[in-house]
């Protein structure tokens, strides 16, 4: 069934859009990533203009994150207090990031820089998570009880402004979460993504939150970032396609429900290793695109 999208100005198969939304929704519910880094390239591939793809995927991420968040709220795996603090840092970071992005744009070659940024970050994060979770799985295979306690807590414990995060089982200074939120805010503004795939590992490895809580909390904070992105794109560039978003989010919200159920049945280190593989796969694809000879060395772009 072909459907004409009024803003993208192209006719696309509706079932294809439902399917794409569904796949990204499952991943979103499982890992707590928005999936923007996945759905945007998929939409390009379908033939949606890049500007519309970026803006509309933000809109669909709002929907699948809300869907996933409600499922996590019922399981009590959302640390609202931690989410709020990360958000605060994230907003400041995003403001700095937008300024940085405009500065880079004036220098030219911003696309290339964004792509390189992606490859470096995805590669580094993916590798770290992969190695760590592989070790965790090996350990779990040998010793059945008593995971080794984390040792890197020491110096962070001495920082001021301590706060209790009951859901995460932490009593730490609020400075590290703010710094994490701030850095992810900068990166997501520059790279044009919600930042879930950076935020999730940061919460696990820097803040030492339990993996199951991380996913719900990440979804909570992505909702605001994605809603704000949708708003800005719709008001300034008029590139949000509600019709396109509708098909994607019907698939997305359903997928997210299945995703949270799959996630709840899996062990934390299994989830981490799968996310690591996903991140590495996207990284590999991007790196390949940069290095491999393109299909056509010429391309057409709008004049702006």
């Amino acid at each position: 069934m072909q459907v004409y999208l009024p803003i993208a100005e192209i006719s696309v198969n509706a079932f294809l859009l439902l399917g794409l939304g569904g796949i990204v929704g499952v991943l979103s519910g499982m890992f707590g990533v928005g999936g923007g880094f996945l759905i945007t390239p998929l939409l390009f591939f379908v033939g949606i203009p890049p500007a519309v793809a970026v803006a509309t995927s933000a809109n669909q991420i709002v929907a699948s994150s809300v869907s996933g968040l409600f499922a996590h709220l019922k399981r009590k795996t959302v640390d609202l207090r931690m989410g709020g603090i990360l958000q605060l840092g994230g907003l400041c970071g995003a403001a700095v990031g937008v300024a940085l992005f405009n500065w880079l744009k004036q220098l030219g070659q911003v696309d290339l820089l964004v792509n390189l940024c992606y490859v470096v970050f995805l590669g580094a994060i993916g590798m770290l998570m992969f190695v760590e979770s592989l070790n965790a799985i090996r350990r779990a295979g040998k010793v059945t009880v008593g995971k080794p306690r984390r040792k890197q807590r020491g110096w962070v414990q001495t920082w001021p402004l301590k706060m209790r995060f009951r859901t995460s089982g932490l009593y730490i200074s609020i400075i590290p979460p703010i710094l994490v939120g701030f850095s992810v805010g900068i990166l997501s503004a520059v790279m044009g993504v919600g930042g879930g795939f950076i935020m999730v590992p940061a919460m696990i490895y820097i803040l030492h939150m339990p993996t199951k809580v991380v996913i719900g909390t990440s979804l909570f904070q992505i909702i605001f970032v994605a809603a704000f992105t949708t708003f800005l794109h719709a008001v300034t560039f008029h590139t949000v396609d509600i019709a396109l978003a509708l098909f994607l989010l019907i698939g997305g919200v359903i997928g997210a429900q299945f995703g949270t159920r799959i996630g709840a049945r899996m062990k934390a280190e299994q989830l981490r290793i799968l996310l690591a593989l996903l991140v590495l796969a996207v990284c590999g694809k991007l790196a390949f695109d940069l290095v491999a000879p393109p299909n056509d060395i010429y391309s057409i772009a709008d004049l702006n």
Partner: protein
Amino acid sequence: MRARALLAALVLALLPATLATAQDEEVVLGLSQNRVAINANFDGSEILIFGAVKRDAVPILPALDVIVTVAGPNEPLKVMRKERRAGIWVNTDQVTIRQAPSFYAVSTTQPLSQILTQTEDLRHRISIPRAIRSITSGDDVLDEDNFVNALIRLREQQGTYLMQEKAVRLDEQTLFNTRVALPSNLTEGVYRVDVYLLREGRVITSYETALRVGKVGLEQWLYALAHEQALAYALLAIFIAVISGWAASEVFRLIRNQ
């Protein structure tokens, strides 16, 4: 087909009345639709362009040829070229084209090079490369032609530039018709349909008419809302997303509790 028969009858009726006056030839043209409406089910469209040559005398030799062009609204764009720098493919050169038709179809009775001379093509801007205008580039780009050819090649792959030689059917030097397929990714606006009559490589007369392409119904309403009431549209988009996310979660909870 019925329209064509009707026109034939019309032309035949006109012929005897004006017999044996000056040898002027004129185009009488019809389109299967004057308006292409883009609705939610729009998946491209095909228009039939048909007409007749109205003339005062019996057709004279040499034979007549017909070219029909359909041109979408012009738009500015840039064509970029990648080059390998330090192992990575980077956009290095670019050419700016201020006026390129968003859609362009040329249909002819015979291969274009046989029925149209270079000078006439330059004057009337009929062939695809001639329809692309105002090409500018930096000092470092020496081969603008390659960029224009790349634009044509890419658009031909998309189906937005069409070169249909021998696609115009001409009967009895008088009645002609052709079909042009409009793709689903049409730009809105007024499309220009031109018909050229040619003899010995020269254009002897031409006729121009317009075809309107526009969104209707819900598509039109959403597009207008997005551009004119951007704030309301943005809030609506977010509202729909939040509500459907919540609804899906509730529905699944109900299913599970049963």
